[in-house]
């Protein structure tokens, strides 16, 4: 092939590569979230009550223990599951028992849920049971909120700050 044609071919080839790279480096656009919708994200990690309550050791029991293993309480490792419920506008959206993580079920229970809702006003109720009570919930929060399109409402849980946090 004539040299000039070769040069033109090379320029065209490099131009095509550049167009290919330049285009696919940020196009086509990916529509990852629908228009007119908002997102509620329920995410937390929380350790529930232990399966067997801690018991105070007597001084005799403590004395029997090796010096480096002496402790005031005897606690079981296993934790009970957490019961969590989320209702939006009266409809039950999420109802689950969160098993404690860890090989001995001694870690926190984890929740990570993303719920897509229409933008606008919503009544959100979220409740959680982390004790051994048989009915009812230990924590419950209800909020009436107006969510904007594309808003991300985070619902976190921190027992030491009083329960659910809407952020």
């Amino acid at each position: 092939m004539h040299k000039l044609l070769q040069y033109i071919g090379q320029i065209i080839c490099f131009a095509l590569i550049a167009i290919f790279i330049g285009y696919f480096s940020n196009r086509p656009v990916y529509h990852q979230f629908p228009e007119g919708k908002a997102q509620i994200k329920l995410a937390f990690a929380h350790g529930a009550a232990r399966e067997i309550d801690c018991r105070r050791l007597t001084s005799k029991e403590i004395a029997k223990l090796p010096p480096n293993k002496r402790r005031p309480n005897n606690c079981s490792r296993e934790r009970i599951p957490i019961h969590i419920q989320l209702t939006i506008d009266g409809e039950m959206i999420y109802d689950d028992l969160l098993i404690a993580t860890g090989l001995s079920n001694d870690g926190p229970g984890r929740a990570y849920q993303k719920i897509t809702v229409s933008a606008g006003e919503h009544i959100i109720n979220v409740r959680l049971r982390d004790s051994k009570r048989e009915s009812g919930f230990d924590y419950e929060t209800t909020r009436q909120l107006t969510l904007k399109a594309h808003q991300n409402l985070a619902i976190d849980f921190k027992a030491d700050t009083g329960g659910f946090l809407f952020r």
Partner: protein
Amino acid sequence: MSAVRWVFRSFFDLLEKWLGRIFPPEWNPMLNLGALGFFFYWIITISGIYIYIFFDTGVNNAYQSIEYMTHEQWYLAGIMRSFHRYASDLLVVVMMIHMLREFGRDRYRGVRWFSWLTGVPVVAMVFVAGISGYWLVWDKLAQYVAIASTEWLDLLPIFGEPIARNFLSPDALESRFFTLMIFMHIAIPLIALAFLWIHLQRVTKPRINPPRGLAISVFLMLLALSLIHPALSQPPANLAEVPGDIGLDWFYLSLFPLMETLPGSITWGMTLCFVVILFAMPWLPPLKRAEAAVVHLDNCNGCARCFHDCPYGAIELIARTDGMAFEREPIVDAEKCVACGLCAGSCPTSIPFRRMSDLLPGIDLPDRTIASLRDQTEAIGEQLSGSNRIMVFNCDHGPNLAKIKSDSIGVVSLACVGQLPPSFIDYVISRDLADGVMLTGCLENSCDARFGIEWIKQRIARQRDPHLRNRVPRERLKTSWVGATGGSKLRKALEAFSKELSRMQPNTRTSSNRTSPKTKIGQNEGESDA
């Protein structure tokens, strides 16, 4: 599997040929994939170091610092950023083509398992490094990538607390987490570089730099792209909002939409299966290996040509063990030998003229000895008829020549064209086994045994030992590097060569009557001109 390989091989051969028409042979991008990969790696490294100088590693100011680079210092830091982005994209492209091409050419099984196996982690590391890099811009794309990838990781039951909780709300993310990502983004490419070094351990004379002209052209292309279409950030990340439309880098992030669509168990299952298959591929099924080259010390003078010509470093030189008055002897590592025969082709004792003693070179392939090659050449030559007989030496990876064979065209198969000692060309012409010799095989610069074509060309040009003797009329020797799919091109080349031969004067170096070569031999002709 072989059908899939054939598809890839045919496609890449066509692409290679097409690019071969517009690029000089040594510039062909398809033949410089590994070298281009290294070139992009260095561009990414240098541009990354420069960007890092101005980059604020805190989560609150990272975006602003990149905006400063892109807009305020667009002439240098902005261009560097674009280089960083586009060279990373090109790295993925050349890496994937390199991988598929090696698969198509069946260069991942047998003794080549090592290069394949050490290459697979590099692929994973390039992707992880690239994805982690997108986090650092901390724009809407970064927000999407960070949340999607941590949510995917959280599907593994190994984290006590979901990592994705770090991105729950604007006040949840800490700069400390961000710093961890920067560490990952720098550390992973360094580990990948170490793996690349291992990746090349069983390859001698690896080409890690592209030809200067190609490198300059690619650099100019990147510069033009960076000026015309600079890499820009998307709007800043805001964890209080869900990004709607995202401009994805499809080279790195094309699987992210899939991660969101399919259940986590399926995406993780698919990923694990894919990784296991990639690692197991060299043994799916294992390559039926030809026997490794064998050294015949009685005929070896320790000249080291085989050592220098071996493309896979399978030959080592050690102190002589047989008491002969030579310093060294070669030993073959069977685990590295691909039985390409380049060593036998380089041996000064691979002389077909030799009749006083057995034709046993200093190094030879047990499955395809030089002696059997001579027998084959003679047998085929004796059957040729006409005034323009052509002896074609074709390698196993060249075109299928079954339909090309005729009364005037004979075909001798080689493990690689580099297995052919140049004295065979002399032998064919001077013994009147054919009127002309055609060498064919892989595409030029794309030799399956890496250096077969290069070495034979240098031997013919008398630039590399053993030389082709001056007495061989060069017009009676042709080469046509057409590759596995180039049968029709070779046929045309043979037709043209045949016409040329018919126009030539009879070969004066041959005896007029075509008798068996064995009846004409009484000396070890040809051994002295190597």
